[in-house]
C-alpha cells in the first residue's frame, strides 16, 4: 500500500524520522539500523532500539561512509535476535542480497526499508560542504537530481554519477522521495498489514516519481556507458596486460578496496595471510629473470584475483573507489569487467535472494563447446 506523508514546516527530515519512529514504536521491528549523525558531522549506521535516539537519525544525508550491508550481515547470521528494520540505499540493499546468496547474511529477520537516493558524496567532500551553516546538500540534490554536480554543488561520488539504480522498489518498505516536493511531503510504500497496524491511509498513486526516476536513470546510464566504454578501452590499450597495469600502477597495496567492498567477505582470504610471503630465493629469481621486481610482489595478482572472485556479484556501489588513497578508479574497472561477465551469465546481482550465484548455477547441458 502507498501512503502520503505530509511535511510540516518544511522539515522533511523530521517527517522521515517520524515515519521511522512509528515503525519502531509500533513493534513492527525490534530495532532499526539507520544512519545516525556523529560528532564529526558525518553519519554512521547504528542499530537503534531507543526511539528517542531517532532524533539523530539522518537517512537523507548524501554521504557514503560505509556500505551498511556488511554490518547488517553480521547481525543476521547464526541466531538472529529479533526483527531489524534496515534503512539503506539501493546499493546497500543490492549488496545485502548478494551477501545472502554468498551465505553471509539472511533476510528472514530483516525488514528492508529503502530510501530513494539522489546520489552521495565522499566523506571529506561532505564534511567540507556541511561545515557551511545551513548547508544540508540533500534539498538541492532532490530538488533537481539531474543537475547534480553542474549546479554549483560539489561533484557526486564517481559511482553515484553513473548509478542506474537510484531506487530499490523490491524492499518491503520504500520511502519514495524522488519526484516529490519534499517541502510538502513524500510517499511511503509498505505492506498492507503493516500499514493497517500503523493506521496509515492509502494515498493516490499519481505522483512525479516514476518520471523523475526514469529521467535520472537515463542520464546516469548514458554516463555509465560512456565511462565504462572508456575504461574498457584503457584496459585494452597497449600490449596484453599493459592497460590493466597502467590503471593500477599507483596501487600501494593497502587493501582498502578489499576491506571496504561489502561483498568481499572471505575470512580466510589468501591475501590476508602469509601465502605470498615468498622465500628470499624466489624474489631474487624473479628479479634476475625480469631485471627488476615490483614490490610488494603480486599486486596485479591481487587485483585480478579480486576481479575474478567478486566481479560477478559487483553491484557497483563504488566503495572501493571512495577508499582508494591513490585515486585508482577501482570501481570503474570492476563495473567494466563485471558488466561484461555478468552479461555472459545473463545475471543481474542484487535482486532475488533465492537466485543462485552464476558459478553455482551450473547445468550439464551448457557451454558444450568448452573443453572439446
Amino acid at each position, binding site marked *: 500500500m502507498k501512503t502520503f506523508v505530509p511535511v510540516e514546516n518544511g522539515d522533511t527530515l523530521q517527517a522521515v524520522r517520524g515515519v521511522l519512529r512509528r515503525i519502531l514504536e509500533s513493534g513492527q521491528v525490534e530495532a532499526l539500523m539507520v544512519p545516525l549523525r556523529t560528532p564529526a558531522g558525518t553519519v554512521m549506521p547504528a542499530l537503534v532500539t531507543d526511539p528517542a535516539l531517532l532524533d539523530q537519525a539522518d537517512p537523507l544525508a548524501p554521504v557514503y561512509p560505509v556500505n551498511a550491508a556488511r554490518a547488517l550481515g553480521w547481525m543476521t547470521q547464526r541466531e538472529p535476535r529479533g526483527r531489524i528494520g534496515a534503512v539503506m540505499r539501493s546499493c546497500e540493499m543490492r549488496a545485502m542480497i548478494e551477501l545472502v546468496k554468498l551465505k553471509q547474511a539472511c533476510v528472514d529477520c530483516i525488514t528492508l526499508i529503502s530510501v530513494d537516493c539522489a546520489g552521495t558524496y565522499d566523506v571529506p567532500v561532505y564534511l567540507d560542504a556541511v561545515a557551511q551553516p545551513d548547508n544540508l546538500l540533500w534539498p538541492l540534490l532532490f530538488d533537481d537530481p539531474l543537475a547534480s554536480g553542474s549546479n554549483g554543488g560539489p561533484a557526486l561520488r564517481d559511482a553515484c554519477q553513473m548509478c542506474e539504480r537510484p531506487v530499490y522498489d523490491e524492499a518491503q518498505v520504500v520511502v519514495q522521495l524522488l519526484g516529490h516536493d519534499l517541502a510538502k511531503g513524500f510517499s511511503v510504500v509498505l505492506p498492507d498489514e503493516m500499514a493497517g497496524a500503523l493506521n496509515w491511509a492509502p494515498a493516490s498513486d499519481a505522483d512525479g516519481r516514476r518520471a523523475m526516476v526514469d529521467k535520472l536513470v537515463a542520464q546516469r546510464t548514458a554516463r555509465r556507458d560512456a565511462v565504462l566504454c572508456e575504461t574498457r578501452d584503457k584496459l585494452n590499450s597497449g*600490449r596484453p596486460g599493459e*592497460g590493466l597495469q597502467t590503471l593500477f600502477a599507483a596501487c600501494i597495496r593497502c587493501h582498502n578496496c578489499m576491506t571496504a567492498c561489502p561483498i568481499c567477505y572471505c575470512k580466510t582470504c589468501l591475501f590476508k595471510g602469509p601465502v605470498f610471503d615468498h622465500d628470499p630465493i624466489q624474489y631474487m629469481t624473479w628479479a634476475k629473470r625480469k631485471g627488476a621486481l615490483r614490490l610488494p610482489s603480486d599486486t596485479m595478482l591481487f587485483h585480478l584475483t579480486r576481479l575474478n572472485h567478486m566481479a560477478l556479484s559487483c553491484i557497483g556501489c563504488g566503495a572501493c573507489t571512495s577508499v582508494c588513497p591513490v585515486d585508482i578508479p577501482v570501481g570503474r574497472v570492476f563495473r567494466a569487467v563485471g558488466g561484461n561477465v555478468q552479461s*555472459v551469465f545473463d545475471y543481474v546481482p542484487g535482486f532475488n535472494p533465492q537466485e543462485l550465484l552464476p558459478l553455482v548455477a551450473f547445468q550439464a547441458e551448457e557451454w558444450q563447446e568448452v573443453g572439446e
Partner: protein
Amino acid sequence: MSENGFEPKIVAFLCNWCTYVGADLAGTSRIQYPPNVRVIRLMCSGAVDQVYVLKALLDGADGVLIGGCHPGDCHYLEGNYKARRRVVALEDILKTTGLEPERVWLRWISASEGQRFAETVTEFTAKLKAMGPSPMRQDWAV
C-alpha cells in the same frame, strides 16, 4: 627447438581421476609429446581456483592447461561443471582486462585417452609458439 628458439612453458592442472591418469597412460604407452608441460595434480578440475591460473600466467607461464573428466564423468559428479563455468568467467574477464584468454585451455581428457593428452599438449605447444612468449615473463611490474 622452434625456429626462434622459444620453448613455451605450460602449467597443467590435471584432475586426479581422469586427465592425470591419461597423462600417465601417455607416458606408459611411450607416446611422444613436447616436454613443455609441467603437471600439477589436483583432486578435481573443480578445485582449480582462478587464482592458480592467474598466478601461473602472471609469473610467466606461457599457457595454462586445465584437464578434467568429460562432462558427466566427474568423480565428484559435478566438479567439472563448476570448472567449466569458472573458465567461461575467467576467459571473459581476461578478455575485458586486455589479457590473453587464448593462453588458458580447458580440456576434457579421460583416463583412457593418453593419445588425446599427448595431442593436446602438442597442439597447445604449437599454438603458444605461434603466439610467442607471454609478455608477463619479462615485465618487472607484474
